[in-house]
């Protein structure tokens, strides 16, 4: 099995996700955004960073990169596609996930460990986790505030995979670092093969880095790559 890690000009977390996947023996390949054939990949990661400088809108220019039509195709086939941070923003712009991400409530970049509570295990990001499990992982973004016009549809279809929470799992304004609607930190699509998360599970992959809580998400993704959802 092999995972394509897509690199846009301005992407910067590609080596970090490669490192985290490597820790559990998942093979990866860095793919430049002009690539038009991903047929060898069993799964795809759109990593964090600042594709095209985040100019215009985060993810807006990246969604037109040549590689994106391959990602559309793979998504339609049911292959696991994971977006992290900037990857989340790109997947929203591309219409593969509902909603959009806008500036944090306090208009400040946030880099610190936060907590998320797992809301659904029916996703490529959480199939190895438990509902209600609280994970301590880093958040690292300026535009991490999730909004959606049809927020009820997102909730009703059970698309929310994780929410920002307090360490005890409770959810309130205090535990919501960036003002995200309904404290949403991660969502999936209806078919549940495309998922994205604003915080960085790969930055919590080893205890020497302060937390290894993110590994359950990396492992979940790896599991869905080995056993892709059927088309």
């Amino acid at each position, binding site marked *: 099995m092999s995972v394509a890690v897509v690199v846009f000009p301005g992407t910067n977390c590609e080596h970090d996700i490669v490192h985290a996947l490597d820790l559990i023996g998942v093979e990866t390949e860095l793919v430049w955004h002009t690539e038009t054939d991903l047929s060898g990949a069993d799964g795809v990661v759109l990593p964090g960073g600042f594709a095209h400088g985040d100019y215009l809108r985060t993810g807006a220019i990246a969604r037109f990169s040549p590689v994106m039509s391959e990602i559309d195709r793979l998504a339609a086939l049911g292959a696991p596609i994971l977006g992290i941070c900037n990857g989340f923003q790109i997947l929203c712009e591309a219409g593969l996930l509902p909603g959009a991400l806008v500036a944090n409530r306090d208009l400040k970049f946030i*880099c610190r460990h936060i907590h998320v509570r797992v809301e659904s295990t029916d996703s490529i990001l959480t199939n190895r986790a438990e509902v209600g499990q609280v994970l301590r992982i880093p958040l690292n973004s300026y535009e991490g505030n999730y909004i959606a016009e049809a927020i009820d549809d997102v909730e009703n279809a059970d698309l929310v995979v994780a929410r920002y929470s307090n360490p005890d799992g409770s959810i309130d304004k205090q535990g919501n670092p960036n003002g995200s609607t309904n404290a949403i930190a991660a969502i999936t699509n209806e078919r549940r093969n495309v998922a994205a998360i604003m915080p960085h599970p790969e930055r919590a992959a080893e205890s020497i880095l302060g937390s290894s809580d993110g590994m359950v998400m990396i492992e979940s993704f790896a599991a869905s790559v080995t056993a892709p959802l059927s088309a």
Partner: protein
Amino acid sequence: MTTEATPAHIQLGMTDEEYDSVCEILGREPRPAELAMYSVMWSEHCSYKSSRKHLGRFGSDQPWVVVGPGENAGVVDLGDGWLAALRIESHNHPSFVEPYQGAATGVGGILRDVFTMGARPVAVWDPLRFGPLDDPHNRYLLEGVVSGIAGYGNAVGVPTLGGEVEFADRFSKNPLVNVMALGLLKQEQLVLSAASGEGNKAILLGNATGRDGIGGASILASASFEEGDEGKRPNVQVGDPFEEKKLIEACLELYDEGLVVAIQDLGAAGISCATSETAGNGGMGMDVDLDNVHVREQGMTPGEILMSESQERMLAIVAPENEQAVLDLASKWEIDARTIGEVTQGPELRVFSDGELVAEVPAASLADDAPIYDRPAERPSYLDEVWADEPSIPDEVDVVDALRTLLDDPAIGDRSWISSQYDHMLFLNTVVEPGHDGSLMRIKGTTKGLAVATDGDAFRTYLDPRRGGARIVFEGAMNVAVTGTRPYAVVDNLNFGNPENPEVMWQFIEAVDGMAWACEELDLPVVGGNVSFYNQTDGVDIYPAPVVGVLGFTEDIPTKPPRLDAAEHDMGIWVIGSEAEGDLAGSAFDRILNGSLRGRPADVDGDTARRVITSVADLASSGTPVVHDISTGGLAVALAEIAIKSSIGVILDDISADELFDETPLRAIVVSHHEPITPVNCRRIGTVGGADLDFGDLGSLPLADAAHIWSSALPRRMN
């Protein structure tokens, strides 16, 4: 004001004598473009003309130094083929003019210095100084500078791992924004800036050239500020982290592919500096055709193109057979690349525009023939006065109240309002994050560890430039020692007032002496630095504010390095290190509670410094849970930091107010279940436990209060 009567060289900031030596070198009057080039290259910022004479006192001949001062960054050997490149720079005046862009372009510039050496930049630090935060303009400057560093550093994809911040009146109209960068490379990736090989091509990579920051080096960075200068200042330079990110990746790939002979970043003085330095360093000449320069604006004169400080540009020297490969690689990374020149036998740098020769000067003369000044120095008259007045702690002091006030100081309270705006985790190397004494990073795939701390102390350097200068070196060394690394190399940033003021010159010389002495005592090479003079506004010079960045290195990164949040119930608390006491000159207590800046900071003995720093590093690398050096605010603040971060109280046995606020250097707190085994002075002072900072008879402060005050010191002022 520009009038017809003012000669061009004066308008460009040159003296009559300097103009005469240009005429002598050329054997004629300079053409306009030539004058522009000399004026910038001979500016204080580029030529170090007032400081050069004194910088020779810094040593760098230790065997682990691969590249000392003089190149774009210093390089040290980490063993097994690994090298580290480091450099520090100031962006003081640009950040006063436009805090966001000033700070942002400062980050961009320092990163280029590092990747110019072939290194991948892996971390940034930001030592900052502002006026007091009760003035809204100072808040605006802090807010802008921090967002600028965040905006650029985060987007370019280099983590910012720490820094420092001080507040004092003297910085209100002249804030200091220094930035330090660290890069990693393998031996074979090292690239230098000397052009060689007649016929080699000079390729300009990156951004288009516009009228940005024309004369930035000579005017903004090399002259004092007067009220009202805002209106006539040159254009603001706008940072483009996206372009820089592409440039980093493209350049690193160029080196990997072995496609460049030499490379130089474009900073101050733009094309004139980069072409003359690469050619001059290689003992060659160069022909440059300005028509090939990719410009952003219409109608730029040759002088403007030569002097423009447009950001995110590099000049690569490439063998002719590799020219096409370089252009192709640039196009893959979506950056512009144009061949603008060719290396010649020299020694002339010849510049053409529209087919006409607009400049012809000996390439090396721009850098090598710059004037060197031995400016007069005079011991400042304020010293006798401040030394005569000995600070003390009033007998009736309320220790708890005093501590509350100190914890509320924005330079003592939690600075994560700053550091959490910076990505400090990217690359998965950060083992000890900002918020501790020094930050510690691993080098993946090895057992090696690197730590960096930046330190300055404008107050003590003002009270005694020599001792203050020495103390920042010792403090930086302590800060990396507590991470379990050994101090390994230093870069320095010398922020001073107007060097034409003999008292400033004296401060400068004394501080350099003190720093050089301390480095020698610790066998620490100074591998690079920067001098920022003319930090003077409306005739007021800043406090002398040298800053050091100390690199610590270890072959064996501790698996559990000390952390401030590792104190646990029942652990003992010890103070180890220097046996001296009663050092209150320039202390937080005297400044903040007594409201004065006076006294003479204690002298430090080199032998003590060496012994303490080595012992601290040994304890830190052998599993001691908490090792925290005692600095601003003394023992009281250091203990509070440990208690707050660990969410548990401390109970002190028998302590005096004098001991609590003393700032005697070279001491650390150790918290552990076991008594530390150390050759230096070691004394138990208390135990971890409870929910208060319990000072026995002197009173106690509930931990929750302390935590609240400490964590809101900065946000309550800024939000």
